[in-house]
């Protein structure tokens, strides 16, 4: 690759990165809005109740542990599930970033980095979905 080509690819890198940065920010704001909505619902219902016990760990209810049950709980307008849905959206923002990076590297025909990026994506998806980690 000549110096000129490398300079162009760096400029494209930069533009792609700026666009991804803006997109991530939108994702975070959307996630925060959903969390806020769920939080408002929760406090409207339970705000006057005594503080729940967080001193000893017993794990949250099963409804709040898997992606599928969080979505169905949100559709039933359960406040806890809506907050958790917002947190899921938040967890999805870095995953989206990695997917965008893979596309950007593919457009530059940098196959080595397409490979590296897909490897990172595989680890992320393994963490999110693998039943062996449950």
């Amino acid at each position, binding site marked *: 690759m000549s110096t000129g080509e490398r300079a162009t690819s*760096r400029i494209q*890198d*930069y533009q792609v*990165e*700026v666009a*991804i*940065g*803006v997109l*991530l*920010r939108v*994702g*975070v*704001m959307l*996630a*925060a809005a959903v*969390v806020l909505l*769920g*939080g408002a619902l*929760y*406090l409207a219902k339970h*705000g*006057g109740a*005594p*503080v*729940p016990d*967080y*001193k000893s*760990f017993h*794990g*949250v209810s099963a409804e*709040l*542990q*898997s992606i599928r049950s969080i979505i169905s709980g949100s559709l039933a307008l359960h406040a806890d599930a809506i*907050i*958790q849905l917002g*947190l*899921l959206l*938040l*967890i999805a*923002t*870095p*995953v989206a*970033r*990695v997917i965008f*990076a893979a596309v950007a590297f593919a457009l530059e025909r*940098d196959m*080595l*980095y397409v490979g*590296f*990026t897909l*490897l*990172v994506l595989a*680890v*992320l998806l*393994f*963490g*999110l*979905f*693998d039943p062996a*980690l449950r």
Partner: protein
Amino acid sequence: MHVPMTTLIFTLLVATGSFFAGLLGALTGLGGGVVLVPLLAIVFGVDIHYAAGASLVSVIATSSGAAAAYVREGYSNIRIGMFLEIATTLGAILGAILATKLSTGVIAVVFGLMLLYSAYLSGRPQPEHPVNLKPDRLAKPLRLEGSYPTAAGPLAYTSARVPAGFGLMFGAGTLSGLLGIGSGAVKVLAMDQAMRLPFKVSTTTSNFMIGVTAAASAGVYLSRGFIEPRLAMPVMLGVLAGSLLGTKVLVRAKTSALRQIFAAVIVVLAIEMIWKGISGKL
């Protein structure tokens, strides 16, 4: 007058504390995560696993929320970041599994040591142009190079000691997954000290890696019930608001005195965490 502690008051107090953690974290560049877990565990008496869960999602929020601002400066290196994320994400999954197996006391002691290291790092001077080492054989074929803007025009750099940097990043990922923090301090150590990348390239690339690393352990945290939505809600919203405000005022604020105060707070929290971890009071 005695005000009874209701869920509403508790939530507002947690949100306020998290706001200041996020604000100070952004102003000092140390990240809010390092003080969040001790704040929740020591001040609010929350179990360390729930504290780590709430902290981890907040770390993702600040990393992704600040990405646009960092990228515009033109320092972060997406290739170096992506290559090293192979190590951090694998480490993060190991760390999250360890978090489900280790006792609260052990996690608290490791956390305290990590805090001491962060405080030490914040007191250390930051050389802008590092001493050049011989570039690693792997730097060129793996394209772990770049250039960054300086007053005298773009300055080229390359990577030294790639295997050492990669190994340290695995450790950074493990700590992130174990403790629910961004572990930016160890990430900067790997890039700045081991690979001898320019300091600004290290810090900005580290910020973009933190969110991806945290997302790798978030799945394990979620499926093990570490992420308590009622607690994570005020923490995440507070930290996000605080860090967004922090990055806005950063340009105007004089941060050296603030860093010293923050470092002192961190040392106190570190001793508290180690003591409570050893004596079994957490």
